[in-house]
């Protein structure tokens, strides 16, 4: 612990009293350290395989975030696992560390209802403490690493890409994997309906490059917002402001008009070249498998600005649940629920069963026999729903977060082959089972029968006996007092 305190002084002292709490990565790490949720690694760490292994270990154990001071051959420290446990996601939102899934989503929903909290543009920013341009640009100044063993190169996995389209003045922010090709080049993997891809395609049609900036090492809210999928007309900076209940502080890029987080650790600036594609991949992606190869556009880095002694932040991605899943699960669900409820107010909750977004569960207050199937098709039609391979509809008496309850609904409320339906030829290039980017989706209606067409004869479902809630409360109290009841209680109910 003494060495931790010493580190805090050497790295953070110059900044920690100048900014509001958690307004940047350093203050967030300070907070985590004070909360015994930061692991400072003093010993030398090898870029491969140690960094990936540490990220995997944090994800598997939901351990503390790690700040690695000494990556072999590099001069800059590296942070990993900053979002690698659900409690840190909750804390970043100002919630109690043991907040359950519904409470975290509720916090996101409240934040989305506050949109927009307009960002402010400053003339300065700590991200400008060092400015490197032209031939001096070298991505290898920062601790790049191969995250998983078959990755095709060193990937930048937690860069928030900032871009703007021609059709409006909204600045979008998203996280895209970037495969390093050289000191100032990366490939960028983007899918057609992602916002930066829309910006890029519209520029490419005119034969022009797209200006972008990439922010690495941010306070903890922006990556959660950038990793979700906000509406195209929304600026993720103004969403982050709504979450933090204070305007996001931005400053201008050196080589373009794009705003960037004023207190980010590292900013990459440059262009995505039109009409050029390069082999990209493989990369160990969130389904837990390596993707194959893509023809991906090329990012040329023209300038890098960074703080003194910059902290390079990386994200562990691998078999669920990993840091990436913890980071974006709730922000994605809140956005999805917000979007779908506008069209279908009967939807009450949407959840992902482990593993992550491959199995989605939609709970609703259904009134018509066709409602659940309509909800599933609606879900598949929005881009965030695209990643779900299996989508199940349940009633309000089934907790959508609880796999055993969902399986109970499937095993008792699916009546005929009509209740299980398949959409063929669905776009999904990150599904390990895809063929040329095409896969299937499976919909399951696991709801009770409703008029006008009864799928099976209605039965009486067993409700909990009167007073069960009070008895559960007593057992929970005993459990809290460390008395071994031998009972596993689900806190997500």
């Amino acid at each position: 612990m003494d060495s931790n305190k010493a580190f805090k002084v050497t790295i953070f002292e110059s900044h920690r009293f100048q900014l509001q709490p958690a307004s940047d990565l350093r203050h967030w790490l300070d907070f985590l350290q004070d909360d015994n949720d930061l692991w400072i690694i003093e010993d030398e760490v090898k870029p491969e395989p140690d960094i990936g292994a540490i990220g995997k270990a944090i994800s598997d154990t939901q351990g503390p975030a790690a700040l690695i001071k000494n990556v072999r051959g590099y001069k800059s420290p590296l942070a990993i696992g900053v979002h690698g446990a659900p409690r840190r996601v909750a804390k970043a939102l100002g919630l109690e560390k043991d907040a359950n899934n519904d409470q975290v989503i509720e916090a996101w929903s409240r934040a989305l209802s506050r949109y927009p909290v307009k960002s402010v543009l400053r003339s300065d920013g700590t991200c400008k403490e060092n400015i490197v341009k032209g031939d001096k640009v070298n991505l290898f100044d920062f601790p790049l690493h191969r995250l998983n063993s078959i990755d095709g190169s060193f990937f930048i996995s937690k860069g928030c890409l900032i871009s703007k389209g021609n059709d409006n003045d909204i600045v979008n922010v998203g996280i895209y994997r970037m495969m390093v090709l050289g000191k100032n080049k990366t490939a960028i993997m983007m899918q057609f309906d992602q916002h930066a891809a829309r910006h890029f395609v519209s520029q490419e049609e005119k034969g022009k490059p797209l200006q972008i900036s990439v922010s690495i090492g941010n306070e903890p809210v922006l990556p959660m917002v950038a990793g979700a999928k906000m509406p195209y007309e929304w600026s993720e900076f103004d969403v982050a402001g709504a979450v933090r209940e204070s305007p996001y502080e931005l400053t201008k890029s050196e080589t373009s008009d794009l705003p960037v987080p004023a207190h980010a650790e590292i900013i990459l600036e440059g262009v995505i070249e039109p009409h050029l594609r390069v082999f990209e991949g493989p990369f160990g992606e969130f389904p837990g498998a390596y993707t194959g190869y893509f023809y991906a556009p090329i990012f040329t880095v023209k300038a890098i600005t960074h703080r003194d002694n910059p902290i390079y932040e990386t994200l562990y991605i691998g078999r669920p649940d990993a840091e990436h899943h913890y980071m974006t699960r709730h922000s994605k669900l809140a956005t999805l629920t917000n979007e779908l409820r506008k069209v279908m107010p009967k939807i009450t909750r949407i959840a992902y069963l482990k593993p992550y977004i491959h199995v989605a569960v939609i709970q609703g207050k259904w009134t018509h026999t066709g409602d659940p199937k309509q909800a599933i098709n609606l879900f598949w039609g929005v881009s965030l729903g695209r990643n779900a391979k299996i989508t199940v509809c349940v009633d309000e008496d089934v907790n959508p977060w609880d796999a055993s309850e969902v399986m109970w609904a499937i095993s008792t409320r699916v009546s005929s082959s009509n209740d299980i339906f398949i959409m063929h030829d669905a776009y999904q290039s990150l599904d390990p089972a895809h063929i040329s980017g095409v896969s299937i989706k499976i919909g399951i209606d696991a709801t009770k029968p409703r008029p006008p067409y009864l799928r099976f004869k209605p039965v009486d479902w067993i409700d909990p006996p009167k007073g069960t809630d009070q008895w559960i409360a007593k057992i929970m109290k005993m459990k809290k007092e460390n008395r071994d009841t031998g009972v596993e209680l689900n806190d997500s109910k």
Partner: protein
Amino acid sequence: MIQSDICPRCSSKDVSDVADSPVAGIWKVYGCNKCNFLWRSSEEELDVKLPETAFDDAIWLFKGGKKPEMIRTRKSI
């Protein structure tokens, strides 16, 4: 120590130096000009061999508009 003159993934001998460690003399990064694989001299183990047909199913992201030039490799960028 991984070889510097042959790509561990596609066995091409068309490789080049990409970067040196910021702390001098610790490692070098090499890049394959045929398949774009990058590797570090200090990596202890690389089991990344590719079949000849590995690139056949490469997906062209957001098809549409003018067909881009598929330059494929880092050599000419």
